[in-house]
């Protein structure tokens, strides 16, 4: 009896906590539209990098269709992939495409739909150097492999004639948390350096040969700003919004390109020709004179078979809306738009969902 009461009390306590949390969480979501409760709730989860644009899209979509609410939780790409495989969400989202092994684990075929693009930029803190530096792929790979240890190394200096680089140690900074930003960076290094590919490889977090780890873009940029001689990588959006200086990177056509929304979209357009039908493609080091080489798509993961007809209709409609009207909203939030070639190809691919 005593046990029972204590369990009841515990359950009550938990229920109250849950209620409390709900009460705390719900108002902001419900506040803008005191409209009737949504008739249909579609759930998604995954990548954190596109969260700002996704939440904008789902909000705008909800305004157009007050009876539909799309709920997205930014739990990370790994979580998004796991949940879409397990079928606990209606769709997932990821910054790195699913592997063949992961696709094999899912009960139904999972389709990839690119939504927006992002890029990584190298940022640095060299006392006495305020100019914009040029980085060759060899220099970046060498620095992150620990082979280039001084700022005046010829591999860096030759691409930056006229800039007086000091004879000081390079302090390498990388992300400590698993992230899509890291995935893009190491995917690029794997493409431009065979040694990186075999020794380190690519994933959302890797076994770094050297360096300090900072948590999040803010952790990396904080370490770089504080540590003289440091180099790190952050998301382009983060660099733009925080007015951080960053360097140019030499692309596959041999041109030093500074990352901006246009050069990222150009990278996707350059890769569009060789785009596989499942959209699982890396666009780092893409061809094209104006293409910025450290760019990537981020994807929505949609099961090819959706049992609930109402949900299927919403997801299909949303995908069409996202490719057309949704794309007009992305640049305001500093994401790069999909090039029209990719939009056309995706529009066709939507018919694969049934």
């Amino acid at each position, binding site marked *: 009896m005593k046990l029972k009461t204590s369990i009841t009390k515990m359950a009550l306590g938990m229920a109250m906590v849950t209620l409390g949390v709900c009460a705390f969480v719900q108002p902001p979501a419900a506040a803008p539209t005191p409209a009737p409760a949504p008739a249909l709730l579609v759930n998604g989860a995954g990548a954190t990098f596109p969260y700002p644009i996704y939440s904008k899209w789902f909000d705008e979509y909800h305004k157009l269709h007050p009876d539909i609410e799309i709920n997205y939780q930014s739990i990370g790409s790994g979580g998004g992939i796991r949940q879409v495989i397990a079928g606990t969400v209606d769709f997932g989202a990821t910054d790195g495409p699913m592997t063949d092994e992961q696709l094999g684990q899912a009960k139904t075929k999972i389709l990839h739909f690119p939504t927006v693009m992002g890029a990584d930029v190298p940022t640095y803190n060299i006392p006495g150097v305020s100019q914009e530096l040029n980085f060759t792929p060899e220099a970046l790979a060498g620095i992150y492999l620990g082979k280039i240890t001084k700022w005046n190394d010829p591999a860096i200096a030759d691409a930056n004639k006229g800039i007086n680089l000091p004879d000081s140690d390079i302090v390498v900074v990388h992300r*400590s948390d698993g992230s899509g930003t890291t995935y893009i960076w190491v995917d690029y290094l794997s493409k431009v350096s065979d040694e990186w590919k075999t020794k380190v490889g690519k994933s959302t977090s890797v076994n770094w040969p050297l360096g300090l780890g900072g948590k999040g873009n803010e952790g990396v940029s904080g370490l770089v700003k504080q540590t003289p001689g440091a180099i790190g990588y952050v998301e382009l959006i983060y660099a733009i919004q925080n007015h951080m200086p960053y360097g140019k990177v030499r692309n596959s056509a041999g041109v030093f390109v500074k990352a901006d929304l246009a050069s990222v979209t150009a990278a996707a357009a350059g890769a569009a020709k060789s785009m596989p039908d499942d959209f699982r493609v890396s666009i780092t080091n893409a061809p094209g004179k104006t293409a910025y080489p450290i760019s990537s798509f981020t994807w929505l993961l949609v099961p090819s078979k959706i049992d609930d007809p109402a949900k299927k209709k919403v997801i299909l409609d949303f995908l069409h809306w996202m490719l057309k009207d949704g794309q007009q909203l992305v640049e305001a939030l500093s994401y790069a738009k999909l090039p029209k070639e990719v939009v056309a190809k995706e529009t066709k691919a939507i018919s694969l969902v049934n």
Partner: protein
Amino acid sequence: MAAASIIAVTVMLVYQLYTNSSLPRQKFGLGFFLGRTWDPVGGDFGALPFIYGTMVSSALALLVAVPLGVGAAIFLSELAPPRISSALTFVIELLAAVPSVIYGLLGIFVLVPVLRQGVMPFLKTTLGFLPLFKGPIYGVSMLAGGLVLAIMIVPFIISVSREVLMAVPVEQREAALGLGATKWESTWQVVVPFARVGIFASVFLALARALGETMAVTMVIGNDPKISASLFAPGYSIAAVIANEFTEATGDLYLQALIELGLVLFLLTILINGLARLVIIATAQKGAVQG
């Protein structure tokens, strides 16, 4: 019955951690504890750098925090005028309630620059012959991790130790003073030994917090899973790597290796708490025999 529910939670916790980490246990066995590589791409996982980082940063924290904390507690309970004592106690209890991320920010913006520009170069020039203070200076380091932890646990030690010292019967002090002891002798030879068990308990409570601390540590420790003798080198702790990599961990082996790290941390905490209990029992008995 409430106690039974606590045991139930503990059992469920261990069960969950254990069953969800079967893959790496099968693959690495006990080698998991000794492996020095953490390679999510190649699927090779070893816990040693994280165990080492957790133990060293916590030990460093205790080394700094225990003398400071116990000293402050003695001052507050024995020496300070009541008004100052109650004001300081209020502030210290406030500090004990500050969220750890705030201490992390304090670490990044205040502690790390001070270490990099002042303390570390000084240590290197004066004690640089020791392997503890060799190597390049980044600021973020095992030393910074340990010091942030020390700052965080000092309030715990002070707060609990002070309570224990206050609970020492006034008669004990009066008797000591009555026998002609000075204030100093009464404090060190009567009050502190009397409260010894409670002071140990406060230290172990603080240690438990240090072992499991995540945010503040990951912000200043440098997050590099390598074992280095130098305190200037970056390190990594178990709690920090779980928090950092869990959300984006793809692949079952990787995820389960992180869960096994959780199990390791759990066992480490139990081990240390068990030891603590033994120490407390031993000192309590010794006290009983003597007194």
